[in-house]
């Protein structure tokens, strides 16, 4: 395990914000750390980086105890916490050069990072004049600068446009598959994490509600087929007769548990061939809130 915590707890005053967390992040994984705002994600990340002192429990990174091997561990970790920490009076390149000075990394690596996050043209512009997305990209470049084995990223796609989000996602997948890195990424968006994560942990009110591979999550998440059709009640009765289970009916929409793409095609064919005009048919996931409900109800 790259990260392994045991009974990790943390209090802010009287309020317990992290409750007996046992995280298991395998090597070579993209671990999506999911939870709504205020669930304790950033606090957990700060604990993993030794920015906050652990009240109870233990943290092992690369199989070493964090407190006693702090420097050794941090030298192999790149991180981005909340909004990127950037000196606004320095240019993008100067921000990276300053970090390179501290980490004893060459200037060519700095230029490489600028290119990677598409900031070469804006390298000499003051970071204070960067857009939110550019700052976020600079933050990612800062995290990647020391070529760390483990990347800890707290909501790295905040403020990025769709292109930026796709780029970051592809970059992370590439780092894991081609360069054998491990990525620990927090997010409040299930859809974002689902597209790249190999493993998922779900946290709410400081408690880990679910942890496992993305396949395990999909099994719980139960995607549905949503069909927009002319006469929903008749169409639903028709589908029921054909042996499908209709879980939800509204004036315009029907929902059926998703099993496969073939099944979706079959439903579409059946409805159309029997005179029910299908306006749209697609697969949807339960949103995170509903998933939470499911998971908590099961617990």
């Amino acid at each position, binding site marked *: 395990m790259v990260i392994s915590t045991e009974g990790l707890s943390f209090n802010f005053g009287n309020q317990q914000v992290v409750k007996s967390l046992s995280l298991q992040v395998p090597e070579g994984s993209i671990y999506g750390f999911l939870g709504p705002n205020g669930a304790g994600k950033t606090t957990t990340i*700060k604990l993993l*980086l*030794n*920015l*906050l*002192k652990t009240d109870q429990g233990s943290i092992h990174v690369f199989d070493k105890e964090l407190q006693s091997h702090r*420097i*050794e561990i*941090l*030298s192999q*970790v790149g*991180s981005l*916490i*909340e*909004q990127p*920490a*950037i*000196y*606004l*009076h*320095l240019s993008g390149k*100067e921000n990276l*050069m*300053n970090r390179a*000075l*501290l*980490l*004893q990394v060459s200037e060519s690596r700095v230029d490489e990072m600028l290119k990677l996050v598409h900031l070469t043209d804006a390298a000499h512009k003051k970071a204070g004049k960067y857009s939110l997305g550019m700052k976020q990209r600079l933050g990612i470049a*800062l995290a990647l600068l020391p070529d760390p084995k483990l990347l800890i990223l707290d909501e790295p796609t905040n403020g990025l446009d769709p292109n930026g989000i796709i780029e970051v996602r592809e970059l992370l997948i590439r780092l894991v598959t081609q360069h054998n890195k491990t990525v620990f990424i927090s997010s409040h968006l299930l859809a974002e994490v689902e597209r790249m994560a190999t493993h998922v942990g779900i946290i709410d009110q400081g408690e880990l509600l679910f942890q496992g591979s993305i396949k395990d999550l999909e099994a719980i998440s139960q995607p549905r087929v949503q069909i927009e059709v002319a006469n929903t009640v008749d169409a639903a009765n028709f589908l029921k007769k054909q042996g499908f289970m209709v879980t939800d009916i509204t004036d315009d929409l029907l929902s059926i548990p998703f099993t496969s793409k073939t099944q979706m095609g079959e439903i579409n064919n059946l409805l159309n061939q029997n005179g029910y005009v299908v306006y749209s048919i697609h697969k949807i996931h339960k949103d995170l809130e509903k998933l939470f409900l499911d998971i908590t109800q099961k617990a």
Partner: protein
Amino acid sequence: MKGFILSFRSEFYKTRKTMGFWSAVLLPLIIYILLFIGFLSHSDKLATHPGLILWLEFSVPVLFVMSFLLPMLIVFIGYSVNSIEHKADTWKSLFSLPIPKFSIYSAKYFYALFLVVLCLALFVLFTLGFGNLLSVIKPSLKFNQYHIESTLTLIYLKLLFSSLGILSIQFLLSLLFRDFLKPMGIGFIATIGGVILTNLDWGYTYLYPYSHPFLTVKSTLQNKMGNGAGMPQITVDLFTKDIWVSLAVAVVVFILGYFIVLKKSVK
């Protein structure tokens, strides 16, 4: 040690374009350019003065001003080296670097100290440089008749020692408080308190760090005047009891600050 050197260099890299750095250079430069112009334009009147008196006229008013300006400059330097991290929200990234926390903390403190040393060294340099330049441009000004180098260096060295207690306190306040007003306000009021206490001639004024620069300047100038008739003599007693207090406060607060940093959660 490597972490300390890297952090110190990084402090310079970060601040080299900020007012925090440039104030340490510009303050002595501006004051001495103004004095230089003043002496140049009044050179006829000053031509009768002997070398030592000229040097005193060239440096004593600055020392008076500095006894108040130095604490304020330290308040500002302490604030600016810490506010750069508060503003950019970079404490978390600084303390997640593979560098010991003590190296990061002490490099920042010693960088603030370096700025104070730089400023005071420039005061010495500019006093001597501009004084000698005046006697080159206007040979009637007999600055070259007297050598004040060692005495002046000693006075500024004492002024530096006298300000270290304030530096440690202000550094810690600026590290703890994110906003500008708290360290600045406390520093300003404490400095005014120092002026009042020094003028009251209270027996225990030497225990109050913010009065140390005033005590230093006052005692040095009293020595000068105390000589009565004839040429004034300046003797600098470097390690007086107020200086020992200043150094002790500096060391204790510096160490205390580190333990506070260790305990403090990084926001």
